[in-house]
């Protein structure tokens, strides 16, 4: 009997061991089986999902650290259809808080439809870009309903009003806290395009890749065992941009531009403020502007698709008399003339067989180069250009960057070609008309940048909007760049003095109490389909100061103002801008600076 029991034990033990071994070997076989591997992979694909995670878009700051473009948390609202028990309450709640159509929400919940694969949609998007405040309101309603449900006595088939099945998915939304301020510089981010969203216009377009950062492909798993460091890795946000733009100066320039637009009856106004020493653009105000937070209204603000988004860089125009600054700079630097060189103005100068006249068709008699600039005499400047000859004249213009883009770090910059002697459409008269800014087209930034060289000891700077990039805590600066020296420092000082004296002598409306400024008015005819328009002009003024150590250069352009002359409409705008600019830049009046320098 005892032997039989022992045998049984051994038999059962042996059988169990064999069975265990068999299961173990079978498991190994299964794990190494091709089909099993496919099944495992299929299981993993259900358990895990791979998504491309977009980093938070980098912020844009002004030169003092004021946020110009940032991000704010918003939510998409989804409903898990199988968990929804009260579609009516959800629809009514969303309609009351978000202002959406109740019937639309209800229909989405009751008839979610099928997806591309033909499967029934189980997760319906009910609303998008819901703000935190709206979310709080919805959550408060939910809380209230839950509270009420506890007090209700319901029949078996009745459901208390509830928002079950609804959930919020957070996401970051591009936002511009300053609204319209600097929108022409910043551009916008078309966030409604979701994964396809990109920067449009301005810095958002130019630095899109930097701002967007590096998207990361990340595996998400619902199995906590499979959590790994990759899933926990923090995705660095896109790079932050620090601009040369000063928010307060930009705000002032935009306000003055808006006022000038109204008072002058112009088509548009452009004001550019630059530091001539570094090429830093401190402000770039244009009209019209739009709120980048509502970028979808672009077509309403710019109904004509040919209207440039940023007039300062995306359009060229014939600058008129402000161009005489470059002609005179070239003539002085080449030694063709001196400030006191005499010229007898007979009211007409023939060049290439065509007569050039003054703006008033008058003869101004004996002049010096200083008074030629003061009275803005076309005849005199045409003579100066003729004395230089086309080769020398156009060489200087090339050196000033005319005919080329400035290389500013903004999207959409344009330039018009500079016709020179030998070009198919160039005629000798071009030399005459070009000398006073007709027959040659420049963008507002191009002319400002070129004339800024006169205010900067003859050094031509690359205009820049981006000062610094901060990427993952590392700071990368974008240093000022000298791109040429078209004229000598001596010529630059001489011309600055000439233009300072000119303004003082004529008691220009551009003068600013307590500050010495140099500058030039411009009134330009506008080319039309059959020649120049007879009833419209462009008025402009460019000036810089303080003349002994220029800290700013300001360009004002009024397109087709009601008043005819630049000196009448543009010069006072320049004066107003500079009066406020010196306060914002902490620039003391000349007599105080002289006192400090004397100590």
């Amino acid at each position, binding site marked *: 009997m005892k032997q039989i029991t022992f045998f049984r034990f051994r038999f059962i033990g042996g059988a169990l061991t064999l069975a265990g071994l068999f299961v173990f070997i079978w*498991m*190994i076989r299964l*794990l*190494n089986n091709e089909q099993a591997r496919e099944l495992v992979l299929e299981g993993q694909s259900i358990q895990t999902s791979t998504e491309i995670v977009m980093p*938070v878009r980098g*912020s844009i*700051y002004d*030169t*003092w*650290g*004021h*946020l110009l473009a*940032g*991000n*704010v*948390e918003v939510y998409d609202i989804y409903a898990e259809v199988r968990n929804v028990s009260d579609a009516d309450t959800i629809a009514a709640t969303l309609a009351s808080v978000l202002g959406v159509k109740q019937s639309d929400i209800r229909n989405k919940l009751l008839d979610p439809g099928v997806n591309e694969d033909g499967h029934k949609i189980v997760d319906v998007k009910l609303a998008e870009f819901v703000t*935190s405040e709206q979310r709080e309101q919805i959550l408060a309603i939910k809380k209230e309903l839950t509270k009420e449900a506890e007090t209700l006595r319901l029949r078996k088939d009745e459901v208390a009003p509830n928002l079950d099945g609804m959930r919020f998915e*957070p996401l*970051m939304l591009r*936002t511009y*806290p*300053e*609204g319209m*301020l600097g929108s022409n510089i910043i551009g916008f981010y078309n966030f409604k395009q979701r994964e396809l969203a990109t920067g449009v216009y301005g810095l958002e377009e130019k630095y899109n890749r930097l701002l967007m950062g590096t998207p990361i492909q990340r595996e998400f798993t619902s*199995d*906590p*065992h*499979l*959590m*790994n*460091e990759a*899933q*926990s890795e*923090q995705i*660095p*946000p896109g790079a*932050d941009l*620090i601009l040369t733009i000063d*928010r*307060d100066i*930009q*705000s002032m320039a935009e306000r003055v531009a808006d006022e000038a637009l109204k008072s002058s009856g112009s088509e548009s106004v452009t004001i550019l403020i630059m530091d001539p020493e570094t090429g830093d653009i401190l402000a770039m105000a244009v009209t019209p502007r739009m709120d980048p937070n509502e970028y979808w209204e672009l077509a309403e603000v710019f109904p004509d698709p040919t209207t440039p988004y940023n007039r300062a860089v995306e359009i060229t125009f014939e600058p008129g008399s402000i161009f005489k600054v470059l002609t005179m700079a070239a003539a002085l630097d080449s030694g063709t003339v001196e400030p006191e060189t005499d010229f007898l103005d007979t009211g007409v100068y023939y060049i290439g067989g065509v007569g050039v006249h003054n703006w008033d068709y008058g003869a101004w008699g004996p002049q010096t180069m200083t008074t030629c600039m003061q009275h803005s005499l076309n005849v005199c400047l045409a003579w100066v250009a003729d004395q230089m000859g086309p080769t020398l004249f156009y060489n200087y213009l090339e050196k000033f960057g005319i005919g080329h883009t400035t290389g500013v770090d903004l999207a959409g910059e344009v330039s018009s070609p500079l016709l020179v002697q030998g070009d198919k459409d160039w005629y000798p008269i071009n030399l005459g008309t070009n000398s006073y800014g007709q027959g040659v087209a420049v963008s507002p930034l191009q002319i400002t940048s070129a004339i800024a060289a006169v205010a900067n000891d003859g050094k031509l700077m690359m205009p820049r909007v981006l000062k*610094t990039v*901060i990427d*993952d*805590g*590392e700071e990368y600066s974008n240093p000022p760049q000298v791109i040429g020296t078209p004229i000598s420092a001596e010529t630059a000082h001489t011309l600055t003095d000439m233009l300072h004296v000119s303004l003082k002598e004529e008691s220009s409306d551009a003068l600013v*109490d*307590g*500050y010495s400024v140099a500058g030039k008015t411009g009134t330009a005819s506008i080319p039309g389909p059959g020649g120049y328009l007879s009833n419209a002009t462009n008025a402009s003024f460019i000036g810089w100061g303080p003349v002994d150590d220029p800290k700013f250069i300001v360009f004002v352009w009024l397109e087709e103002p009601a008043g005819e002359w630049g000196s009448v409409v543009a010069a006072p705008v320049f004066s107003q801008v500079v*009066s*406020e600019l*010196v*306060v914002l830049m*902490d620039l*003391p*009046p000349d007599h*105080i600076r002289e006192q*400090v320098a004397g*100590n």
Partner: protein
Amino acid sequence: MTIKNRLKQAYKQAPWRLHTQKGVLFLIAAILGASILWIMVTVSVEASSAGLEIQYLNRLRDEYERGNASKVTEIARLSSAARLAERAKELGFVRATSSQISYVYVDGYTGRIAKITAQPPGADLPPVLIRPEYTVSLSEWLMKEIVKLNEQSLGVSP
């Protein structure tokens, strides 16, 4: 009792002793089995808890980051140029002109300094947040190792 029987008794354990030994052996096996089971369950639970905690902390971190970004933007909105100008106007301030400003010479003053509230560099975290022994259960580890050995012997590339 014969001599043969007496010799047999000399080396054979008494039946109650044999039963006790078998019982103890069974108990040891049972306790060992239970211990292994307990370790497996504990490790598995710890792995799950750690994973869940990481998921929770990730969500929390993302939530704070989003919240911070929103607050920075909200502060910027509340202190925007237009809003400040409006507020100043409401409070009776007027725009100063250059002639109204008194300038004082301060030796060594270099002027206004920019303050950029940019995000700090990413935290230099150790690459592995969770110890490898907590990421798989004992059975999973055993099976993985067996499969690995098998693949190596078959020459399967990893």
